[in-house]
């Protein structure tokens, strides 16, 4: 029973981390930017779901495609207007810029929505599914299904579509992609938009399972970074695996060491991986090359 709970929670949280980390890794892979504001995109996604559910009374899971589209547009614009200016500068400039963007978004959230914690509670929030003596909260099951669907769609998009393959090609060999006729500046903006859309969906899913506020993104940026490093920075599929590894390590760590360790575990893993295997544990060959 307990181990079953462990697996369901691990898969659910792992899927969310995977989605968060994949977006973070994509941006790093394509434009060499470690987006410190990634967590704030998650926060915006959470509020978008919250307000759509609250104001329109729709099911939270129905809001996900809409917030993906909204966050895509937002990410695309942010890349075109702000991020594109520092792509040829040193990586520290990208840190400073995205850190500033993060501050801005968090404070805008505080001003707009206040600092209090909120939760998205659909009408079936307390329903459980009883299956052969096992009880699963209905909401968690739907989150799990949503997570699997998002990851499957993402993998399909990246491996089968013209745009997805072009994003990978741009990450692998930017100049060769240009020579194949790819407008790489457009790809940069689309990748950033895609990353923000994934963050937005993750935010919507998190809003259903956990209470959240304007600061919710701060630890998540750290986790996105950990997940991406685990997978080999720049490797999207590596980050997908990394998400599940981190989630199971966290949940296992909480059971073994206690709840106060929850957020620390990610950083212990980050440190250990960076010291012992900076190229990542699960990086896909050729994608996780460290660019200077």
């Amino acid at each position: 029973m307990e181990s079953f709970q462990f697996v369901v929670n691990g898969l659910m949280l792992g899927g969310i981390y995977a989605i968060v980390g994949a977006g973070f890794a994509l941006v790093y892979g394509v434009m060499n930017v470690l987006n410190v504001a990634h967590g704030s995109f998650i926060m915006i996604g959470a509020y978008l779901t919250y307000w759509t559910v609250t104001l329109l009374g729709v099911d939270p899971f129905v809001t996900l495609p809409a917030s993906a589209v909204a966050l895509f547009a937002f990410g695309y614009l942010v890349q075109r207007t702000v991020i594109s200016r520092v792509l040829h500068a040193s990586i520290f400039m990208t840190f400073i810029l995205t850190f500033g963007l993060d501050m801005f978004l968090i404070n805008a959230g505080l001003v707009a929505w206040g600092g209090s914690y909120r939760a998205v509670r659909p009408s079936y929030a307390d329903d459980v599914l009883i299956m052969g003596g096992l009880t699963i909260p209905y909401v968690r099951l739907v989150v799990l299904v949503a997570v699997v669907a998002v990851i499957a769609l993402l993998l399909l998009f990246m491996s089968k579509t013209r745009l997805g393959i072009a994003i990978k090609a741009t990450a692998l060999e930017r100049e060769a992609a240009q020579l194949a006729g790819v407008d790489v500046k457009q790809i940069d903006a689309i990748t950033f938009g895609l990353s923000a859309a994934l963050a937005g969906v993750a935010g919507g899913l998190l809003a259903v399972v956990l209470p959240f506020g304007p600061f919710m993104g701060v630890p998540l940026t750290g986790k996105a970074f950990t997940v991406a490093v685990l997978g080999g920075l720049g490797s999207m599929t590596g980050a997908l695996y990394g998400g599940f590894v981190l989630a199971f390590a966290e949940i296992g760590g909480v059971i073994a060491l206690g709840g106060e360790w929850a957020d620390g575990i990610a950083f212990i893993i980050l440190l250990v991986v960076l010291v012992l295997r900076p190229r990542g544990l699960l990086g896909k060959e050729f994608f996780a090359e460290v660019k200077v």
Partner: protein
Amino acid sequence: MAAMLEVRDLTTGYTDVPLIADLSISLAPGEVVALLGANGSGKTTVLRAIMGLLPAWQGRVVFDGQEVTRRAVHERVKAGLVMVPAGRRLFFGLSVEDNLKMGGYLTWESRLLRERMAEVFALFPELGKLRTHLAGKLSGGEQQMVALGRALMARPRALLIDELSLGLAPVVVERLMPAVEKIRNLFGIPVLFVEQDVLRAVELADRAYVLDQGRIAMEGHPKQFAQDRRLIRAYMGV
């Protein structure tokens, strides 16, 4: 005959020192032209400037009657100007098939992609068996075939090739060089290629330029150069 590609008084470089200065070259339809010169003479820079990977400081690049000097790289590719970069620069993490598909990025219509891929496999039959392999896992020669194939997938109207033989064993180069000839004959497109190896260039080219410190030192038939001492000096840097 009007030139397919015309570079006029081109000056450019990476820092503030020009690497090529007042350089003029041309490529006529159906012509195979070699760009020769010592290491560091600016051959690669010329090709990069023609493609727009390096912006021109002065001068013009005219392709098929249209001025493309200020256009983005992908717009030049769309116009039919396609380059095989030095060192192949394949998408190592993608399969051979996806690398070739990327060459056809601007059309990306499944029937056209299939047709063009069949042409590439006809030119390099060994690639047919490697379709699903990652490009990064191939031998240097196979990678160069993919690089040529990727360029052909774009249906170029003029092809620029940077150092086909770079880092490849002589046997492999022997196998690849005739492909350039075949490409010209099959597709009827002009080719401008950069080459270190003068003797190989002689076999292949209708015409050649010798580049010395960013300027055209000589122009003519490569056979002329092969016996010319000035060329040996310019080329070998003695």
